[in-house]
């Protein structure tokens, strides 16, 4: 197996998985919060938040990447602030790739969670209130278990989006082998050099395998959850 793939290819695969998993994990809680706010909240600026969350879905990825570069880059206002005060660096670093992937996948995650929130019977939450439950408790014990299938679906979408993210990543953090070169950018590189067809094909196969595995795992989890929790 190790001989089948070159060390560079292994590095790209490992980095891709790391970036995608970190992006997915980091966007989970903000994703649930945004979905809840958009679905249930009645506050000023809800429409604006809705548009903002969905922007990455409609903007060209390169535009998102460039926006990240000028705000989170070393000279960007947010990037400079984070680097000076917390030592967090995004530009040309794998964390930057994760940030780009998280942002690109965020609308997909939020949409999936929101759809399942819509289907939750509000009477279940009302009943918990009349039985003496604090709203936070209601969310944790009633709402959250009921939207778990939606959360799983959203996580898979976010992971898949991160595995395939190209435009925003390459614009924001470039394509540095071992640091920011993920499977898609590596495939792109291989297609640009003579004799790179083998590497491109191998990474493509790996990419297909990972996607199928992710879908399969999520299906399995969703089925378990549904069997345990829902009719």
């Amino acid at each position, binding site marked *: 197996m190790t001989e089948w793939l070159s060390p560079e290819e292994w590095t790209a695969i490992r980095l891709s998985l790391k970036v995608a998993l970190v992006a997915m994990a980091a966007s989970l809680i903000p994703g649930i919060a945004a979905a809840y706010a958009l679905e249930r909240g009645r506050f000023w600026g809800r429409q604006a938040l809705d548009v903002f969350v969905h922007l990455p879905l409609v903007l060209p990825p390169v535009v998102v990447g460039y926006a990240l570069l000028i705000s989170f880059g070393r000279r960007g206002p947010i990037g400079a602030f984070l680097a000076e005060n917390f030592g967090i660096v995004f530009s040309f670093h794998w964390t930057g790739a994760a940030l780009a992937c998280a942002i690109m996948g965020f609308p997909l995650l939020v949409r999936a969670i929101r759809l399942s929130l819509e289907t939750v*019977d509000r009477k279940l939450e*009302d009943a918990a*209130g009349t039985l003496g439950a604090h709203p936070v408790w209601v969310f944790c014990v009633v709402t959250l*278990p009921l939207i778990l299938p939606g959360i799983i679906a959203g996580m898979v979408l976010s992971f898949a989006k991160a595995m395939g993210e190209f435009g925003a990543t390459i614009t924001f953090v470039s394509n540095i082998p071992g640091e920011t070169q993920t499977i898609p950018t590596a495939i792109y590189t291989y297609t640009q050099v003579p004799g790179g067809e083998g590497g491109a094909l191998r990474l493509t196969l790996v990419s297909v395998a990972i996607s199928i595995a992710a879908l399969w795992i999520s299906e399995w989890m969703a089925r378990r959850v549904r069997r345990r929790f829902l009719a």
Partner: protein
Amino acid sequence: MAHVSIRDVRKAFGTVSIIKGVDVDIQDGEFVILVGPSGCGKSTLLRMIAGLEDISSGDIRIGPRIVNDVPPKDRDIAMVFQSYALYPHMTVAENMAFSLKLKGVPKPEQKKRVTEAASSLGLTPLLDRYPRQLSGGQRQRVAMGRAIVRDPQVFLFDEPLSNLDAKLRVQMRAEIKELHQRLKTTTIYVTHDQIEAMTMADKIVVMHDGIVEQVGAPLELYDRPANRFVAGFIGSPAMNFIEGRLGPDGLGLPSGAVLPLDMKSQAEAGSEITYGIRPEHLQIAPAGTPGSIPATISVIEPTGSDTTLIVKAEGGNLTVVLRERCALKPGEAVALKPVPRQAHLFDAQGKRIATA
């Protein structure tokens, strides 16, 4: 247990006024039914008592405390919903223990109280099942069990029997009544089914279009409806209404016929009034009998225990319920003779004006 008082409560959704000033007093331990046609605001009022809906103005008291701004969890109530609102991801036992777990009641005590409630509702063999594995009637019982286990000051029921079939509904009606007699917890129960209201309530609140039309004991509403709406709403089949003009000899019908009245009324002679008579207070007499309403039989519906007749009379169809079987045929001309002292008179605004 607690006294509940509702003082000039109003509710508007945006600019639409839904509850337009409701005053109701519910005594400690009383079983009160809110009844009214669909959309009149019953659920909204109940949800305001539960704290699930804000009050636009007015006061709601549970016990000595004004609860306008108290969140649902602190009102010490338990609500049973039409859709049961059971947690699909919890077993029957977990559903029933929900409120105890929140209160931090120790596990053995939780188990004891759930077991008790379950056995009183016949749920013992179902404790480990999930709601999806239960029939509608069993779910309904679990929802009640969950409320009982909380041991609240007030039970709130929102059409709990509407999703059950007719036979089960009759059975559950008796069970809820029996439960109330045992626990004596103040209960507010919403339904649009006036039979449920008549059979279960200590006191009925008839609502219509966001206001209270009348409050009273079931038979009081039946015998002395305060207005035409209550008269038509309570009783099945519904009361018959005949429009006419009050003359010196009785009710003048548009055709010129006069129906003698055997009651005093405060209305002025010549004013437009409505004469109301329940279907069981009309008797069939031979056509042409003086002091009766001429009519033609249109439909005969034998139900077994009694016979419902739809007859065509001046001003529209009337319903007659006969206790005995009859040999009448559709198309036959008859006369309808009101049973003495059973008619109701309403003025042009629909207010009761006569005392029989």
